[in-house]
């Protein structure tokens, strides 16, 4: 018998042996873990904690626990501080890349409407019952602006240029249809202001 055929015969025999014993081997792991768990002494939580911090037996684990607890404490403090000073809670005007303003605090939301030659420009919206709030163009360059304090939330609005409504503000977060016309939308607050 050659070495190859001997190896093949040996492998076949082993496979047959394993296949025959499979029903007994299937539950072996569970059997062993159950047996070991039964032999382990049961500790009360206070006893387990005392052993963990014991200078002789659990010194390293104890040190590790203290370091971990300190790290968790620092992490919690960091998360809390981050919540206090996160950008969306910061009061005051904040211009985004799109030019939209954030209305938290006293500064308010900046509305800009280019209307060269217009006699009057106003903004109407959900925050004021669709009553006109005038925009101003103090330097006469045709860019009309107003900064209006708005509560956090969703605000629909439109500009009124010489009495004609204009609801497609390029600085808006959204544009929606209303009564067959357009309204612009600004979201003020955490997820809004055009960011």
């Amino acid at each position, binding site marked *: 018998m050659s070495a190859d055929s001997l190896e093949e015969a040996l492998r076949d025999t082993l496979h047959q042996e394993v296949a025959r014993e499979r029903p007994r081997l299937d539950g072996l792991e569970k059997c062993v873990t159950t047996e070991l768990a039964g032999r382990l002494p049961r500790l009360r939580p206070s006893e387990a904690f005392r052993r963990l911090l014991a200078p002789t037996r659990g010194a390293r684990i104890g040190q590790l626990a203290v370091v971990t607890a300190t790290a968790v404490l620092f992490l919690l403090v960091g998360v809390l501080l981050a919540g206090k000073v996160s950008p969306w809670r910061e009061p005051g005007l904040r211009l985004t890349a799109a030019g939209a303003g954030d209305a938290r605090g006293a500064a308010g939301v900046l509305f800009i409407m280019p209307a060269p030659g217009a006699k009057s420009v106003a903004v109407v919206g959900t925050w004021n*019952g*669709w009553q006109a709030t005038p925009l101003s163009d103090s330097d006469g360059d045709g860019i009309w602006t107003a900064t209006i304090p708005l509560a*956090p*939330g*969703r605000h629909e609005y439109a500009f009124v240029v010489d009495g004609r409504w204009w609801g497609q503000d390029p600085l808006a977060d959204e544009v929606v249809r*209303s*009564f067959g016309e357009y*309204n612009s939308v600004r979201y003020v607050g*955490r*997820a809004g202001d055009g960011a």
Partner: protein
Amino acid sequence: MTRNRVRSAFAFAALLLAGATCLAAAGIPEFERALSSLALPGEAEIRQAFEVGFSQNRLEVEEALLLVEGLSRAPGNGPEKQGILLIVAGALRDGLPASMLVSKACEGLARGVPLLAIEQGVAQRARLEVEVRDLLYAKRIFSAPTEAAAPPGALPSARFDALVSEIADALADYLEGGGSPLEGYLLLDAVTLRLTKLSGTVLPPQDVSLVLARIEAGDLTSVVLNALDQPKK
């Protein structure tokens, strides 16, 4: 010494409360005068429903006053003006939030939209609010008068109302934009976008998560189809 401080604190709090109550009540006679000037046959019914809405914080007196003043300035006949007010009154009687309805009506008046078109637009939003509220109930999201009285799974009424109002408004905007009620996934996208953008500002994030975890595209299709099928109230 301590007792005196406690007394002073109570007196200060009572003064604040009295002041706030006076301020809140100050606009009601003005609203009633403006409503009377419209000389509508259903005035008593409208007044009663609006006063319930004021007491439940489902509508501000100033908002109602703006609407009534806008109606009094608008050209058109009494029945159409009354129709708009009755829709808002009906919503308030049903315990629904009415600010969105009043705002829509005020916008229509400011734009000079015909009263009948305003009535139709407001009525559609009111029907959507009813359907959205029923959907939330069906999804085991309920409302309770206050946070303290809220059993597990129930939201304080102000938070529940905010959800109803924003979901209904998002669906109404979708429909006004020409969206099909049969495209359930687009309806769900519209609602998800609205709620997500308002999460952390006017809507608590946990309320947004609760709703988005429980509603599906098919639910919103049913809501919209039911709202469109109902006869005008």
